[in-house]
């Protein structure tokens, strides 16, 4: 039995070259499905990765109760000092989060960039922030540093250039990386400068906190929520960024799968078409084999193997193409929670490619099944006559 399957399959695969045109329909059709699916999902994965890599479990944000965005809230210097002294807090830094309208490269219209006013401890809390060009800003001076993703997406943010925001002119003195996280889409400035440019007095929106341990988050949250002096809550960075990425990532993901399914339906029709014509062009051949004593199962299996081999080839091609073209491709979108642009890299991961290949094989299976059954059911005598 297995010998028969092997014989027929080998024979089919060897004369594939004579059916190149119609076979390529399966390869391209399924390749297209896999390419689009993997491409769109890699966008969702990249977006989540940028936001999630920003979050650590033992770092937290103290923000206005019930708020989902760092833009809200007003904490006075006195409140900040009280929180700094709490036992769950290792290091804490007041931060103000505003957006500035800057023209995007390649367009002449402004888009929103985050400008984060920070105190010196912000750098200690986020050791991943590293200057790769220039230097840090000096507290009290009209200087800013710019994340590499912001610098590559927006005009006028090169080291040495000057950014005009309201009545202030800030000089860009450095570029920084932050482990690929969303922080790289931000501009950082001295808290006092942002407070005065955006007329915030001495208040900050939030505090960024290095906790003594991940468990301290709950305790600190309880303490702050029970304290009548505060209208505040604690969220770990991980919670905060995961929530921000969830909706958009789910949306892109669902969109990708929906488009993938519709395309897959089309590709199955194409595969069926190809395999039906492959079977019909070999009617005499198949009948001859059956007359020689080959049973129908090997015929079925061989047709399916052929379809799946072509589908797999398509999957590899589609997945590979997307990987070459889009892995690491930087795009940006609006982060709804902060009205600002987040840049992220498409991430064509092994998981995604594996999923793409699974889809390809499944489509090949469906596309091969019905033609294979037809081949097996061919009445030998009529088929031999070549009708």
């Amino acid at each position: 039995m297995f010998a028969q399957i092997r014989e027929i399959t080998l024979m089919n695969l060897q004369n594939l070259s004579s059916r190149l045109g119609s076979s390529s329909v399966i390869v391209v059709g399924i390749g297209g499905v896999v390419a689009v699916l993997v491409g769109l999902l890699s966008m969702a994965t990249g977006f989540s990765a940028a936001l999630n890599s920003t979050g650590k479990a033992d770092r937290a944000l103290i923000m206005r109760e019930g708020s989902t965005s760092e833009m809200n809230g007003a904490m006075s210097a006195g409140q900040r000092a009280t929180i700094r002294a709490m036992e769950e807090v290792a290091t804490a830094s007041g931060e103000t989060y505003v957006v500035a309208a800057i023209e995007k490269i390649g367009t002449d219209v402004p888009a929103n960039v985050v400008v984060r006013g920070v105190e010196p401890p912000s750098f200690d809390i986020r050791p991943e922030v590293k200057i790769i060009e220039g230097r840090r800003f000096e507290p009290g001076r009209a200087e800013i540093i710019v994340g590499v993703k912001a610098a590559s997406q927006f005009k006028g943010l090169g080291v040495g250039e000057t950014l005009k925001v309201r009545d202030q002119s800030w000089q860009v003195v450095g570029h920084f990386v932050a482990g690929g996280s969303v922080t790289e889409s931000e501009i950082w400035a001295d808290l006092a400068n942002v407070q005065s440019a955006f007329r915030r007095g001495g208040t900050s929106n939030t505090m960024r906190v290095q906790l003594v341990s991940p468990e301290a988050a709950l305790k600190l949250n309880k303490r702050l929520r029970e304290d009548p002096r505060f209208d505040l809550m604690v969220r770990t960075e991980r919670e905060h960024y995961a929530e921000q990425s969830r909706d958009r990532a789910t949306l892109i993901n669902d969109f990708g799968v929906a488009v993938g399914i519709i395309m897959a339906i089309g590709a199955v029709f194409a595969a069926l078409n190809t395999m039906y014509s492959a079977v019909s062009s070999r009617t005499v051949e198949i009948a001859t084999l059956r007359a020689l004593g080959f049973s129908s199962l090997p015929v079925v299996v061989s047709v399916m193997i052929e379809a799946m081999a072509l589908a797999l080839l398509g999957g590899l091609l589609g997945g590979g193409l997307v990987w070459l073209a889009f892995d690491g491709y930087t795009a940006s979108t609006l982060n709804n929670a902060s009205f600002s642009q987040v840049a992220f890299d498409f991430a064509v991961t092994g998981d995604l490619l594996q999923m793409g290949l699974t889809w390809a094989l499944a489509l090949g299976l469906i596309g091969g099944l019905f033609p294979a059954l037809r081949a097996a059911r061919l009445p030998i005598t009529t088929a031999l006559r070549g009708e």
Partner: protein
Amino acid sequence: MSLFSLMWANLFRKRTRTTLTLLSVMVAFLLFMLLQSIADAFAVGPQIAGNDRIVVGAKYSQIDNLPYSQKQQIMAVEGVEAITHTTWFGGMYQDGKSFFAQFPVMPLEYFEVYSELMLEPADALQRFARERGSAVIDIGLVDRFGWQVGDVVPLISQIYSKKEDGSRTFEFEIVGTYSDNGRSSSFPVMLFHYERFRESVAFGGDSVSQWTVRVSEPDRADEIAQEIDALFENSSDPTRTTTEDESNREFARQLGDMGFITTMIMSAVFFTIVLLTGNTMTQALRERIPELAVLKTLGFTDMTVSLLVLGEAVLLCLVGGAIGVGMAFLLGPGLSVSLEEVLGSFEIAPQAALTGVGLSLVIGLVIGALPAITAKRLAIVDALRRQ
């Protein structure tokens, strides 16, 4: 037998093949319609014919507020007919999972500037103008939350708190719904009374996020926009004024390049379709060469035979395309419910149908061209010999 019925009969000589090809063409155009409609929803926003509105926002940052005192100055600019304003309230309903915006507005001013919006029931505008605790909602929100006139909706503002007790929960009684000729906006909002807002909030009661101005001559919109910006250029609240259409486009562009994504997907889909259908047509032609020779022998001219083959390809694509476009309109209403949360309003764009049908015609011509040329060049003697 007319040429058309001959084409039709030829198409169905291999029923399975034609049906499968037709189905995959159909799926491709269904996908085209859906993607095109989504891209349209992103790219253009609500299309308003002869738009005579311009939008004044803060120059350096979208989250900045403008002072109420600018109103008189803008009104004094020549060519300004009417003015209204909105303020970002940042209210959350229940768990905040389904976000929508709310603006405090002056009722009569707002509906004078947005004169295309129709309120229901008949006394809605009167009540809205008179009752300070009232609100009117876009019909899109009725679909989403099932609210009715008379319902009281509590919202928690992320930004504003009440003067009397510091609470951030505000309640609004819905007194009416509005729509643009029965259509909801792509960005459905709740409008409530500005006086209520001004009286009840603890701070920021005179802040305005955006002025919307109706101008008497749309042709002079750019000029008036510059005049308004010049007024505040050197004040502490500089502005940036654009036409409403431009402002919508800028917002959509911030979300990301939907056009690019759509184009990428559709190129993959159409490439596959051309290959698949092209292959079908070549096969069909190859099988029929002797038949075509017979036609020529009977006195059909080269041109007619060539047209016959071309027509078949065009017919196949047109029929498949038309069914796909039709399917999109059938499926549209079901999809819009799930897409509305994301896109505001979604409907299959009628103008996309024209593009779709046009595109199917072009693809048909492309696919049919080669077989048609082959058919035209067929020499009767050679062709007849090929049995």
